[in-house]
């Protein structure tokens, strides 16, 4: 009896924890140190109002360089390259341009879940203890679109928004080796 109750409570707590994450498009690892390579896993839990997802577009924010998306069977992948807002140091190499947008094209029915992966370097120009957002546009059948692009204003959190952009908390850089 107690175990069932406990299990129920645990399940409820778990549900409460992951509940919003299931509904929204989010990042799996929601914190990472600056001056490190970050593996982003975008979790797409549903389509747009029941319509299947046909395209997923990710905007790479300033200060994130050397972006490499992971190919995905059944999905066509495309990157949009453009100049960065400034040059960034990537292990001693000055980088002035690179991937600013990743586009996956394929089909994900509303009742299925999928993950989209890319790897990126978080330069040390990013401020630790701040949030970093990767705006995502989810384009679906019937011309519908969910835009996960809302960046919380000062004093607000992602919970205050209907379509918050997936974000991660930046941590101080690890001690240099």
């Amino acid at each position, binding site marked *: 009896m107690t175990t069932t109750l406990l299990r129920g409570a645990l399940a409820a707590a778990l549900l409460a924890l992951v509940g919003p994450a299931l509904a929204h498009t989010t990042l799996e690892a929601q914190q990472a140190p600056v001056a490190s390579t970050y593996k982003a896993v975008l979790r797409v839990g549903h389509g747009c109002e029941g319509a299947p997802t046909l395209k997923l*577009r990710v*905007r790479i924010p300033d200060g994130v360089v050397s972006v490499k998306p992971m190919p995905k069977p059944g999905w066509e992948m495309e990157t949009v390259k453009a100049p960065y807002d400034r040059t960034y140091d990537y292990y001693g190499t000055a980088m002035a341009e690179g991937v600013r947008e990743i586009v996956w094209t394929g089909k994900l029915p509303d009742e299925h879940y999928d993950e989209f992966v890319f790897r990126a370097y978080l330069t040390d120009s990013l401020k630790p203890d701040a949030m970093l957002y990767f*705006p995502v*546009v989810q384009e679906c059948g019937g011309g519908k679109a969910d*835009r996960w*692009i*809302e960046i919380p*204003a000062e004093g607000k959190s992602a919970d205050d928004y209907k379509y918050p952009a997936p974000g991660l908390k930046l941590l101080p850089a690890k001690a240099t080796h």
Partner: protein
Amino acid sequence: MKRAILLMLWLTLAILGGGGSALAHAALVEAHPADGMVVEQVPATVRLRFNEPVSPLTISLTDAQGRTHGGLAAASRSEMLDIAMPPDLPRGTQILSYRVISGDGHPISGTVIFSVGTPSGSGGVPGAEVSPAARGALWLARVALYLGLFAGVGGVFFTAWVVPSPPSSKVARPLSGLLALGAVAAVLSLGLQGLDALGQPLSALGTAAPWAAGWRTSFGLTVAAAMVALLMARMGLHDRGERWRRACGLLALACVGLSLAMSGHASAAAPQWLTRPAVFLHAVGVAYWIGALIPLALMVRRAPAQALPAVRRFSNGALVAVAALTLAGLVLAAVQVESLANLTGTAYGQVLVAKTFLVVALLGLAALNRLWLTPALGNPNGSGGRRLVRSVVAEIVLSLAILGLVGLWRFTPPPRALEPAAEAAAAASVHLHTPNLMAQVTLSPGRPGAVRARIVVASGRAAPVDPKEVTLVLSKPDAGIGPVERQARRAERGWEVDGLVLPVAGPWQVKVEILVNDFEKASLEGSVTLRP
């Protein structure tokens, strides 16, 4: 001579290049604090927003104790005018009067009345009306300038291009008189325009201020181009070489078109790519036609038979000119008047109707000349010459009457400019902004019931932006009314939401969500009050 012409050409080009930013007739769109509003504290500034960029001419504030504050600091930033308020304003009703000038060179004035604490009586509304004498002088100068440009410059064009030989002194003398009249009128109307802009009496013409003010309005460009036209025509009138006469005549005619396209209600209307060339064509057509009348009458009276080839040539060109000016005139009328009801309902429309009657009569005379009187000129025994002269003189009189009527338009704002002002008066609006974006939300009418919302989005520096989507969210938490969310549709000016119903008066929370591009969305919030 050649250098003079090159200089003229350069001047013309310089004027052309400088005149690109004229805008439509200004109207006050919003005041903050709004007209009639009661505020708790003395505002640091009063912000006036017009439908286009303006510059302040005079600003005066009469406070609740009847004191008048002059010399208030006014900062204009495109269509916004921020007027710093004196900090020691007493409680009660304050009257702020403004006179500003917009891109089309027309001053507009108005008053915003707001109260600090509670409304009270006040020391009277200061007026900034121009005296009838100054207006009469302005009208006269305007008509004289038209005469110089159309009859004078047009006449020189006629003598250079339509008549095979150089003009006799009998023809040249009245033409150079008209050119001189036009030059005097051009200079004078600059000062008079300034008087009108500043709202000063005729006696102030002796001071420098009205002249400088007149020059700063878009009318300054008109006067400059008119002077170039008159000078070129004067040079062309007396030059011996046929080629120079023709070059001067053609350039002068083009400058007449430019001059009128530089300022005025019609040139200021949107879309500019249409109205400016239309004004240009209209003016050139008018100058061709009216300019020919005086030399024609003189030539036919002297030797009817010899004048026949010139009359024929003019008549053929006139077909093209009349077609062009009629078409251009119709386009401009359509832009300015907007609806048939405005033809009789506004002063501008009434002038247009009267002008149309006269123009139809003039066209009738022209047709009579072309179809019957000109062929009769060939008959050596007939009295065709005398009849044609009489008919042309009638045309001249009619043209004078038309120019007199057109001069009246200087004082009647066109219906297209009246409407936004009336709409703004009845609407409730709020200005929202973030550092990067601003939005003006206007609910009209500004009362509970069915309401139409208009949203104009601009960048933080008031540059236009072109968002992908705009969504309006209205809510009234104190009345338990949750967010009413509507996607706006793109309209001619900004974005619109139709069919909103806002049931109660009082303050409403407004949120405008702007999808700047695929990945960027901005949310602007504020509140707007519906009058009961």
